[in-house]
């Protein structure tokens, strides 16, 4: 297997899905917990129009902050997301060919589709599918979207989410994320994942777990909620949804700060889900008209 650098891995995936006919989009410029939160998945998976896109999404999970001390758990990481709507009959083969395109030989490795249904209580979304294993390593999530914002998806979109760090660890034969080769250069120009991202990892861990001002966060949550509701009234589902995502991230930060009790937690999730539901419903109405 050729040892692709982290950026080559992304480029290869982009070329592969471009050749299939996907539009290559850019990351959404708001903090999100996963590639799914990008409106290109949440909003565009709804409605009847075909939609075939791929994009990288930097994602944040404040509770996974480990001060860059953990070999593969970070509060910031990258996902590569593909949405194919309607899901084509050969979507599994298309996916497997993308792995081959990355240099993974299907005859030499043990590839498996292992049941893993996906659910996002904050988005009111769910889907059925698998995690894809390569020699026991989970390299992707494969989901047939069934519902988003409480709305049934028809036609159904297939969602492929590549865990880029995992995949790179596997392809480069490296043990810790910080040691991943980022740019494939040697000598002075060489950069590792650690050199690119781990200072931020340390600083944000301290912010997420210790310093984020919870009073501000609570207030911003309320504000985001208000803004979202107001935008719905104006029939602007896209900015409304953006404030839903903001609320979701603020909630995640509050969780990381350990100030949300178990009972409150359920209530906050319900509040974000409500925003997601309103945004999606509004989007569908706009889409129809």
């Amino acid at each position: 297997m050729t040892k692709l650098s982290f950026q080559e891995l992304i480029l290869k995936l982009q070329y592969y899905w471009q050749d299939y006919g996907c539009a290559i989009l850019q990351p959404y410029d708001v903090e999100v917990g996963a590639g799914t939160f990008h409106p290109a998945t949440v909003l565009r998976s709804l409605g009847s129009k075909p939609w075939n896109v791929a994009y990288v999404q930097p994602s944040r999970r404040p509770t996974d902050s480990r001060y860059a001390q953990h070999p593969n758990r970070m509060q910031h990481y990258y996902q590569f997301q593909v949405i194919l709507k309607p899901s084509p009959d050969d979507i599994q083969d298309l996916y497997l060919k993308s792995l081959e395109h990355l240099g993974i030989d299907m005859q030499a490795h043990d590839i498996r589709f292992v049941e893993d249904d996906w659910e996002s209580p904050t988005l009111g979304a769910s889907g059925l599918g698998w995690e894809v294993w390569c020699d026991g390593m989970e390299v992707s999530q494969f989901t047939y979207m069934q519902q988003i914002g409480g709305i049934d998806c028809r036609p159904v979109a297939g969602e492929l989410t590549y865990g880029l760090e995992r995949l790179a660890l596997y392809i480069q034969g490296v043990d810790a994320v910080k040691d991943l080769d980022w740019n494939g250069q040697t000598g002075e120009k060489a950069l590792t994942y650690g050199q690119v991202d781990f200072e931020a990892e340390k600083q944000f861990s301290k912010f997420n777990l210790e310093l984020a001002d919870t009073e501000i966060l609570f207030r911003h949550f309320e504000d985001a909620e208000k803004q979202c509701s107001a935008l719905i009234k104006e029939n602007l589902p896209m900015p409304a949804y953006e404030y839903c995502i903001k609320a979701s991230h603020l909630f995640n930060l509050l969780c990381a700060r350990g100030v949300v009790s178990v009972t409150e937690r359920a209530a906050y999730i319900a509040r974000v889900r409500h925003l997601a539901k309103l945004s999606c419903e509004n989007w569908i109405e706009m889409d129809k008209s």
Partner: protein
Amino acid sequence: MSELLLELFSEEIPATMQQKAAVGYEEIFAKYFQEQTISFASIKSYVGPRRLTIHVTGIAAYISASKKEVKGPKTSAPENAIHGFCHSNGISKDLLSRQEIKGVEYFVYEQMTAQQQTKDILQNTLMDPISTYVWPKSMFWGDYQIKWVRPLRNIMCIFDGQTLDFKYGHLVANNKSFGHRFMSPEPFEVTNFAEYKQKLSDNFVVLDHFERKAYISKESNKIAAKMGLVIKEDNDLLEEVTGLVEYPKVLLGSIDQKFLSVPSEVLSSSMRSHQKYFSLFDQKGDFAPYFLFVSNIAATNPELVVQGNEKVLSARLSDALYFYNQDLKTKLNQKSQKLDKIIFHAKLGTVGDKVQRVAKMAEYLLPNNEDIVKAALVCKSDIVSEVVGEFPNLQGIMGYYYAKYESLNEDVAVAIRDHYKPQGPSDSCPAGIAAFLALADKIDSLCGLMLAGEKPSGSKDPFALRRQALGIVRIVLENELLVNISELVDVAVSGYSVYKKDANLCSTSQIIEFLEDRMRHFLKDEYSHELVNAVLDLEKEPSLVNTKIKLDSLQIFVKEDAYTDLIIAYKRASNIVASFVGKDEKINESLFDNDYEKNLYNFLQDYEPKIKAEIMAKNYSGSLKMLAAMRAPISSFFDNVMVKVDNQIVANNRLLLLSKAKQIFDQIAKFDQL
């Protein structure tokens, strides 16, 4: 006789759903054939990750012509009713005949069904049984209208060597099947089951779940034996991995020594839940640094697959090691502080509050014991540890290791570990101080959750209160703990007094009743229903141990000679005194006019205090032995003395005598239940 072969070819079916579906489809098809009145010899289903196959043999080629009488309206019925009947059967009135049924004349239609080809019936209706099975979860895909567990990609259907090209949703059945996803992906054609199985086998697919399972089991044991190791038995895991492969290859990987400092339970859990690997142990029972896994391919270089899996496991175990080391940095009592942030139940405060209650209860159960209080105060601390966060099934077990690490003594560590036990009917009961702690924890949970209105109903028991109550019964009986259940419930309930406003949805007597009910359930295997009903009464005898001793004594007693006569006498006495009201009066000896009365009276005078003393001393077999002595006087009394005589005063005196005799019985057990 014909053969039907149907293959539903799918994207990967969840492993844990496969076997149930195979059984379900077998039943559905059997029923379908019966309803269509098509006779057959056998139905068998096969299941794997990518296909569910049904094979029916010995099918009749056609169903013969038949005649069925359809009863219509009365001949006197209004014309529109008769017209309606004809219309619904698609016939004209002149096809109706008249028939008298139970004195009333009805119209009858003799419906003739022509001979039908089985092939035609299948062609027209096979889609029905396919759609009948309800998966635990099903889904839509693409822009199609049908639902299945995962996208259904192809249907192969062969009847008698011919393709049945029926339609199901957007799919049209054909004669094609497919081999292994990677080793032989091209389609091949099929004409019968034998050929199907052979071609699958040639194309690297083992069709039969049980064949795969047996193979995996055999191969794994072979590899383990070669290493001088034994596999940790785990049938659920074996079932699951069998459902993840079409062409199993068992491989052995090794684990880096550096992870062996982590408790083996953590290693095993990580390997099992994340990776579906089997753990291996040496002959002494120590964790061995190897693992077995089942791949789905005869890879060009299996060593590469092994290396890949070792690497993944190494990353997983690094996680475990990291978490474990993090956990060791804080002591259990430091962890306890975090419990104040975890809600035990919305109406019942935090886990921190619960721990305080459990500690008090433990102290009440076992006063002046430092260890139990020490254990109680940290028994839930591991819940907030990183390892238990990852593997909730390790709660208790991790507490044990953390306790050992900070040099708490073995008894304390074991009590922390075992206080969740027994976790089910097959789990063992804790002993020693762990038994008291387990009891304290369970009685506290049971009472609190009952107060909060979480009493189980039907199949709904989200807090597993039945299991908790059964645990209480087992712990008390197996450890022969002389605790007063009713007091215990009172103490536990009083611990919740601060939540009274929200949590008062149950009375203490309802809690005791619930426990009594579980006790009854527990005893049903060992004692007859009647015997349990005669003895079990926690309000009256709040000790489970005494209840059990009583049951044992009574069980022996009912087999003794004296028993039959005594129970007859008891029932006669009960019947006679049932409506007697003057039970509290004193017996007047001077009214006795025969020895039978006197003898019974003397017996009662003599034995009543003795029997009472035996009961007080909880010597039930002693009390029953004495009761047996009543056989002669009471039997003779009934044989020779008339109770309801005309002289009301004498009659009353005799009724008094019998009431007294009955009271003695009643003190021992509810003999009316026997």
